[in-house]
């Protein structure tokens, strides 16, 4: 069988996006489904969404990246082009153990995108390149 979970996740995001656009709500069943697919991550990600922790940084050159403010106040830079988050949960759960699709930060970024509640922020090209290359603390 081919891998299914990414498709499930994608479909859920689409559903959330559609329903949220129509009703400005995420119904209970979708929340439960999120929880089922993403496990405990879902709750934490929703908390991040509630806190408006996701910012989309864009630079004049057109580059973009997500910044998610973690529960501890630390900023995590997540890429748009692939699933990556510098948080330990991503490294451990997703990369090492292959037990989750996403970490809470990336999930929060997806949810914020689906709901259209991502904060927007502009940064200079230099800042962006430093962020993406990881040469600076954000």
């Amino acid at each position, binding site marked *: *069988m081919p*891998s*299914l*979970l990414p*498709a*499930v996740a*994608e479909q*859920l*995001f*689409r*559903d959330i996006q*559609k*329903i949220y*656009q129509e009703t400005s*709500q995420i119904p*209970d*069943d*979708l*929340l*439960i*489904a*999120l*929880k*089922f*697919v993403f*496990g*405990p991550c879902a*709750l*934490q990600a*929703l*908390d991040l*969404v*509630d806190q408006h922790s996701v910012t*989309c940084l864009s630079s004049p050159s057109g580059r*973009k990246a*997500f910044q998610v403010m973690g*529960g*501890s106040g*630390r900023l995590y830079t997540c890429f*748009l*082009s*692939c*699933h*990556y988050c510098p*948080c*330990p*949960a991503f*490294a*451990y*759960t*997703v990369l*090492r153990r*292959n*037990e*989750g*699709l996403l970490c*809470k930060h990336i999930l929060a970024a*997806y949810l914020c*995108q689906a709901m259209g509640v*991502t904060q927007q922020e502009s940064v200079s090209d230099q800042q962006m390149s430093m962020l993406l290359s990881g040469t600076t603390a954000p």
Partner: protein
Amino acid sequence: MSSRKRKKYTKDIQCVFFPDDVGTGVQKVGIEPSSLSSVCSAKSWEKCGDSFVDTPVIKNLKSSGRKLSAVRKLAQTPALVQTSANEDPVHIAWSSSDSEQSDNETQEQHLSRSVQPQQQRPHKQGRPTAPIRSYTRELHTHSADKDDLPIIDTDSDLDQSEEDVEKDSGQQISDCESESFDEKPKDLNPLKPTNATELEISGYVSDGENIGDTMTPSRPDSESFPLQTGEGSRRSVSDWVRSAQAMLQTPQKAPDQQPKTPEDSAKKKRKFQSGGLAERLNRLQCRQRSAISFWRHQSISDTSTATTVDRPGVLALEVLEVQKECSMQLARCEHHQPPGDGHQHIDPASGERARAHVLVLFNRDTAAQLIPAPRDIIHIYPPWQSLSIEGFSCDIILNTHFSQKVFSASKPSDASSSRNPLSAERCAPYCLGKIFGLLEACRTASENDAKQGAVPNALCNFGGPGGLTKHCLSLLEAIEGLGQAGSVGQDVEVVVQRVFSVPLPDCSAVSVLKPRVPSRSSSAPPPAEKGNTRLCVLVQDSYGMFSVVQLHLLPHKDDLLQYCQKWQGKTCVLRDIKVVRRVTRERSTRLFSLIDSLWPPAMPLRDHGNAQSTSNHVGSVESEAFRTRQPSRQQASVPPCRLLLLYRCRLSSVTMMFICDKAPPPPFCLHTVDTERRGGITVKCSCLKQESRAAGPALSFCYLLSGQESSVEPSEGQTVSTLYVPPTGRTLRDILQSERKTCRCSFVATVIYKRMQSSDVGQGEVWLVLTDPSLQEEQPERPCRRTVALCVSTSCVLTSSVLEALHSSAACCVLFRDAIKEHGVLLCAEQSVVEVQSTTRPESLSQSLTDPQAKTLPQPVILDLLSLETTPNSLCTLTGVIVGVDENTAYSWPACSHCGSDNLEKLAERPQNFHCASCKSAVDRPDTKIQLEVFLSSSSLNNCTLKVKLQKKTIMSVLNVASLEFNEFPGYDVENVLGKEVGPLAVYVRVVTRKPALWIGLEEICL
């Protein structure tokens, strides 16, 4: 921290820390692997729990915030021993990097820390017991560190790390496949878990440089465990536990445990933003969790549920293929047709195949329980969800928490292989470079728009809250499936059993609302306008569940009667209601006395079928602690067994055990009743194979809902519902002689006397003395009181017509609906309705209530003789001899001849005349009021002080005064009065004092 965590840890402990348990536990693994935990862990948990209580060691560690480094070093020591050149980068100790704060530095460390777990294995292979032992030792030296490390490190983002830890420790038992045991001898198979865990442990170990620094409080403990051999480990359990616990104890966190229900790691979550999504999910999750654990409990204890397939919403699936994907298991299944069903079995090779297939996702917990394997038959009970994905031919079933394996294809012998939930083929990690659609949308904003339009609602629910129909018959289901902010999204069909109104306690808000009150209310008498009242209805659904619905404020109290006629007894649809709170019998006995009066129901109630029961699990567990079986029709003719209750206990539900009177001599026929449920209990009697439905007690709780006027809408066809239990009029005699201490009763009675606390009826309590023909008629066989007192409390709303009737001096006939009889006293309070019974208005609340009034009362009414049993606020007659006069109370005063007020002012110009300040009129000949209280001795009551406040008429006869001239009171001679016989007097009993001696304060009244 949480007890949950502690439990989880014990589970880990149990296969390790308790010598006894280790032995048995491992044996079990060999024989019946899947039952690795439950019994043992419970046992060890008990032990653990016991010793947690009494160990003082905890304290030492509790405050050891500073000992982090020491602990860590302890962790590192063994690693040092084991470390070899052969480093496996896979086993980097990720777990200690969980703290987001210390992320950078720890990660650096990790790169240098690596372990070669296989190293230690060779010298264990020879002896099967060795791994246990060494695992134990490992745990003793490391495990505390292993689980604690992340926590110790963590100072901020607890959740993340705990989650990971949970995953890890969860893996200790279940992840036994872990990647690299290929070289392991087969005979070690049963012991896999321990090795796997060991591997885990070493995975955390880091090659610390400093061994000398290992003096930590836990070190002595671990050294006190000479675990060289299995025998050596046979120490007393309490010692084990003590030291283990000492090691496990961490400053911040109680031991971890296997989650009983899936992923409840969120339980420890701090506060979420109020009204936020996380909060909502958390709430949903809590409900789901309790539902799942309850369901599991039930499905384990009752295997018979497996046979019930043909219920709506239950998916019967045959597993074709299983694969592990992330932590979940994905099973490709086809709908299972029972053999011999007559249905055409779908040929797996045919083209129909894809359509009949579904993909089912099980989360780790469910998968661990279920262990799906090809050819297994699995039932999935609602609520589940189905998701259709673009480009996928078959639906994906999500939320499969209520799953049960009904047929296992694997024989017990290969259980050892299927035991491992991870035996399923693991799917390759998905490509991180392939992101999901939405992030792209961020890059190319417009691209996705067209696509979105075409997306249908992919997720559908079955049986879950989201999948409920708009129209619902069950209050419970509607309430449990409620959406946001406590509002019930569904329409519920109910029968309005009662309509009543309650006064609002204080009406500071009323002034705001007042302008909306129609002007017609101004015509009503003033008292009726004081305070606002809220319309309420007591409804019952066809399953027997009750709820009180608070509706709008009544602009006019008298409107109540309209609503009574409009709604009461009718089947109505409730919509747009919100749940205010749950009301329990203990907290509101009066409401439940009303509910009890409507019980048992007038007609058989519906049963929640099992399918619905299951769906109700998402929500209050208590409500669905029931399972009933429909009585079948042909059995109805068999007289039901008489069942004698043997015992009754309450766990998650009420369980009762009966013995049947038709049971043959021993062995007895015992009946374990399913459980108590609303609408009574259904007992499956095994002796006659019959089911009898006993009318059990009504539910112990109901809901308080709120809504608007539009929330109640009578459904089509204005006939009275068969479920409606109208108030049945009873005679007062019947009510008084009834054995029941507390009950509701409805009756028509004549008010022969009323006594108000304040001048305005309706403001304070009103005491009414009632009688009816049943009390007045000759009572040869069972004498009863002739009159009865009834208190109308302020919580009972009196309509203007009632107030009017009570204000008038004439005796009036009044209908009391759902009055409360409490400890022999009648009371009109919440939910009681008082209505004047008049000949001009034949349409009363209930026609049946008018019947007792067909007989007329004798004139004058007969009163009881004053006796020792006389209670306050009652009426009786008294004949006695005056033995004393209370001279302090003997006086007379002028009063207005028009209005009776004593607020008279002497006119300056004409001292003989007065001006009444109350009615603003000149009073030429004021009445003279006179008061006299005397002590009587009655032949019927000895040794009793009777003080009677006499009425003017009696005073004058006592004084032998024909009339009082003007306001001249002639005065009296006490000697003349003493010894005079008075009576029979109709008196009202004001006070009865029994201590130190019987003393009764009476007041003569005029009927």
